[in-house]
């Protein structure tokens, strides 16, 4: 069986800037592939390629074993790749159900009299969220009144409900408190257990390690390797993330400065 998503030596340049080079990893069904790296490591470039916003110009990008060049987010969605962005997951002023069905609204009637099936949309929103274990008070309330973690969860539940096979999550825990981040990770694990392939982008190894099956480490546009969980410990992951020897040198320096 081929992987849901696979990149082989994929690369991307913006003018003279090499944003990404020789990156390889796989995303399997029912597994979480974590992409870790500091700012400017190339995480954003990689997800933009996977989500169809940008096109890679080197290497191969395979969906279900078939090489592709995605031309738009719509095409990515049609191939079952849904992306949840950190800050633009939802429209704050719109109600939960309007957000949930945005872009895929159920309608009834025909011709020019086709209208939103509001009842169905509201019921299905509550049902889908309840199914993911998200306890919603009122489908009519504006999403802006939900907490940051709840907003991410609505976006994740939306992707699951609309049959995504691959879920790309861009820093879902970045702006959240410890408890909220834990809630979001719980839904990530739930999406994984439903057989979705998840790509989790983060710079926090403590969030990545508990849910991840595979860890792709990026640094300055290059891959430091794609490790299976059994091949890397949390300590090693953290050390690699922070730049290993560089961090030790920094610690030494700071200690020196403090004295």
């Amino acid at each position, binding site marked *: 069986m081929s992987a849901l998503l696979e990149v082989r030596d994929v690369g991307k340049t913006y003018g003279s800037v090499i944003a990404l080079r020789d990156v390889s990893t796989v995303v399997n069904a029912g597994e979480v592939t974590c992409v870790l790296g500091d700012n400017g490591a190339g995480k954003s470039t990689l997800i933009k390629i996977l989500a169809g916003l940008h096109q890679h110009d080197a290497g191969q990008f395979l969906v279900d074993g078939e090489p592709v060049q995605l031309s738009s987010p719509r095409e990515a969605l049609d191939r079952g790749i849904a992306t949840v962005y950190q800050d*633009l997951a939802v429209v*704050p*002023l719109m109600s939960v159900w309007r957000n949930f069905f945005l872009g895929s609204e159920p309608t009834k009637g025909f011709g020019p009299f086709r209208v*939103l099936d509001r009842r169905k949309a509201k019921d299905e929103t509550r*049902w889908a969220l309840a199914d993911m274990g998200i306890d919603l008070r009122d489908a009519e309330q*504006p999403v802006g*009144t*939900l907490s940051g973690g709840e907003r991410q969860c609505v976006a994740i539940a*939306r992707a699951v409900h609309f049959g995504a096979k691959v879920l790309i999550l861009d820093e879902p825990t970045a702006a959240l408190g410890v408890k909220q981040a834990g809630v979001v990770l719980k839904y990530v694990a739930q999406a994984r257990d439903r057989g979705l392939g998840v790509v989790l982008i983060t710079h926090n190894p403590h969030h990545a390690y508990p849910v991840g099956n595979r860890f792709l480490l990026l640094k300055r546009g290059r891959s430091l390797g794609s490790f299976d969980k059994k091949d890397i410990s949390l300590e090693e992951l953290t050390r690699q993330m922070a730049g290993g020897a560089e961090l030790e040198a920094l610690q030494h320096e700071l200690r020196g400065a403090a004295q």
Partner: protein
Amino acid sequence: MSDFSGTLTTDERIASPGLLTRLAVRPEIGALIGALVVFVFFTVITSQFVTLAGISTWMDTSATIGIVSVAVALLMIGGEFDLSAGVMTASTSLVTAMLSVKLGVNVWLAIVVSLVFALAVGAFNGWLVMRTKLPSFIVTLGTFFALQGINLGVTTLVTGTVQVSGIATAPGYASAGYLFASTFTLGGSPFPISIVWWVVVTALAAWLLVRTRFGNWIFAVGGSAASSRAVGVPVGRSKILLFMTTAGAAWLVGTINILRFTTVQANQGIGLEFEYIIAAVIGGCLLTGGFGSAIGAAIGALIFGMANQGIVYAHWNSDWFKLFLGIMLLAAVLVNNGFRARAERARR
């Protein structure tokens, strides 16, 4: 998938909200209260305000503002402005008048041509905004001046004066006039047909906004264009359609005007664009997009019409009308901002 609704039970955390609470979150409630206050005020201090002739007059004033302000409200909810809508009412009048008076074209055909002209300008506005990513405020300010120049320039060139008149004798005038500029009798008093158009346009816009898929997209592209794009909403196409709708509404008012007055001044319509925007804002539209109501904009236009005519009936200097507008606008923006803060506040 159809039988899951039975498994949902009413959530005990949701108290059935009282009527007042439910009303307070409606965008048009502020405008409704304002309209009531203005109505009562002029009813008390003038004698003609609630006569049938009086009602007909201020309803007509409201209608010609309201038809466009409802379309402007949709555009504002979609996150954009159109400053060219006022001048567009004159441009479409001029196109219709020149074609039928100077070229002898049937009035019906002239009306259709001016509609195509309006939609083309609207599409151009939208395309330019999407293409350049400039604020629509700037793009349509450009269109505003360009149309103003064309109106005056072309009219002077063709007629040697700054007006076009004489459409009443053109072929097709009678039947077109019946549809756009006739009156109907209610309680023995004549009411202009523009009021019917206003009601129809408002009902259509309100239905479109709340009940249809495109309406959902209007809220979404205004609330967050990037989020909408990420879930596959055609942001560019939606916004261009909204600009075309505004231009189309301006065409309707332009058509009503030329057929009713049978003459059009080339400098007409300047300043109306702000009245449309103010009516939409009084009606609950946020200046930043993503929230508002078509019915609210219609009520905003009603306040306009009532105040405009009420001041005349009260024998005041009409200069005071502008002061009234300014105060209404500020009050409305403050009320709207209060709502927005409540809706966007996250419970962290």
